[in-house]
């Protein structure tokens, strides 16, 4: 395996249902590092591939709290501590007036954190990827569904992986060079 390093073995399917079946079969056959590629999110693929729940909501929560708390603190600090101005005897800490900016930046912080977390956890942006070297892979954003059994771990055997995928009746089967 080492000299002609392999990223994985790629199979192409015509329909989402065929991909779902293949994904379930691969999991059942004991392949753990299996990944699917689809032109749109396919319902049920998460379960078929046993994808764990992601942490994007947590990031959004943290971002929202940081944005809101930071903005409230900024207003309080600037109006009460750093530059107190007595305007018609109104309290320096006039909290109802601080709510709009606090609310807005809570939303902003949560939204930016959600998107940043999505991109970072996905490892994007990324200029190249071994899969982009496969000519057929262009169709993953068009009308084809791909399943990739990745060459990870000492027990991976390319021959057996190819033989297994061939039983799934794919449109085409190809090696992905690393």
């Amino acid at each position, binding site marked *: 395996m080492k000299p002609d390093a392999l990223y994985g073995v790629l199979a192409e*399917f*015509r*329909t989402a249902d*065929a991909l779902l079946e293949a994904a379930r079969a691969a999991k059942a056959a004991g392949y753990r590092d299996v*990944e*699917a*590629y*689809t*032109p*749109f*999110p*396919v319902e049920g*693929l998460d379960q078929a*591939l046993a*994808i764990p729940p*992601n942490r*994007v*909501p947590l990031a*959004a929560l943290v971002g929202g709290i940081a944005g809101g708390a930071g*903005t409230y603190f*900024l*207003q309080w600090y*600037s*109006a009460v501590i*750093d*530059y107190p101005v007595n*305007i018609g005897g109104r309290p320096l800490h*006039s909290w109802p*007036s601080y709510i*709009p*900016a606090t*609310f*807005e*930046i809570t*939303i*902003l912080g*949560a*939204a*930016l954190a*959600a*998107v940043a*977390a*999505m*991109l970072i956890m*996905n490892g*994007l*942006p*990324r*200029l*190249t*990827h071994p899969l*982009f070297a496969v000519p057929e892979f*262009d*169709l*993953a*954003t*068009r*009308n084809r569904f791909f399943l990739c059994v990745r060459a990870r771990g000492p027990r991976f055997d390319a021959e057996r992986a190819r033989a297994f995928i061939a039983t799934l*009746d794919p*449109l085409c089967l190809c090696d992905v060079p690393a």
Partner: protein
Amino acid sequence: MSAQPVSRDVGVLRAGWGYTSVQDKIADAVLAGFWTWRWWSAFALTFAGTLVFFAAIGYLFVTGVGIWGVDIPVAWGYAIGNFVWWIGIGHAGTFISAFLLLLRQKWRTSINRFAEAMTLFAAGIAGLFPILHLGRPWFFYWIVPYPDVMDVWPQWRSPLVWDLFAIGTYLTVSLVFWYVGLIPDLATLRDRAATRGKQIAYGLLALGWRGEARHWARYETAYLLLAGLATPLVISVHSVVSLDFAIGIVPGYHSTIFPPYFVAGALLSGFAMVLTLAIPLRRYFRLHDFITEVHLDHAAKLMLVTSLIITYSYAVEAFMAFYSGGEQEIYVLTDRWTGAYAPVFWMMLALNSALPMLLWWRAVRRSAAALFAIALLVNVGMWSERFLIVVQSMHRDFLPSAWGMFYPTAWDWVHLLGSIAFFAFLFLLFIRWLPAISIAEMKALVKESADKPEEVASEA
């Protein structure tokens, strides 16, 4: 091996479309598009208008706001009216992409992308006007809290400062929402583009998207979160804008109904603008299978509902003026009906309250020509409302000796019409370079309509 799904007629999508044909229809409009003389003449016209707009802005910066009709007592003229109008127009885009996503409304799929683009451009143009309106626009950043050498901070009790946060957040979140939605489609364009330049441009913008299942899972979570966050945001933005007025004690401004009233008006003008853009768009690209009568019908129903809400708000405003017993409040209201700006008031009522009543008829809601005409007129009506709120209230303040008239100058009109040309110009650029309908979501809809047509049709 089984064949790929072909869509069935579910109302929001006509029958006979597959993954490939849907993509080719939308993506080829961008990559291999039929850019006819009609597109080019619209482009040339709006480009010329854009140049005039920016020249007028240059002249404004050099000369000052005196080129407009604003003066004391009416210090807020077209610029602030335009600002409120444009920001309101943006609201429908967020409503479609966020509210309707959360409510799982299938008819959002084929219209959310260009509605979001509309939001982005409208909100961006709206953001220009308060800056243009400043006497010294180059100091606009003084409203931003930053540790400056002057040692002063923004006045946090001022709704104008809230505005900065509301509009700034709205613009940023709208941009991010729109861009995240675009990422899979940019990858599609990258893989489909024939020239190296386009492959690189779309490839960089697609950030290396490859449709991995784990990526999709996080993507969908993030997208749903953005929708959930944008939903309260869109309500808050026009509420904050309305506080610019409602916090002031000017008669005609100082009213607690302003936030919901402004949001409803924003949605009315926004859906009017969505239809103003959707109807020519679907005609030009022959998208009748994607943007069907069902879409027009739904958008028209929302216009009808929001029109009823603002009619109710007009009634409450009048009732509250009399109920308050405030002499000045009552006077400003009756002046609205009979005074110098009465024609604007009656035009507003005719276009915003009376005209949309035609939408009770199904035949009207499903007629593209009728809807286009109504939508254009409602846009005018909503602009009149903004004008009336801003100008008429101020021209009859508490002090009769300070009463005065506002007369728009030619420059007022140039800036208003120029901003419309700029908006149209940006929209033309958008449909030229980016897919106007979400390709990935349409493919998912194709599959759903083939798998369970009854369910989709009932949700649509």
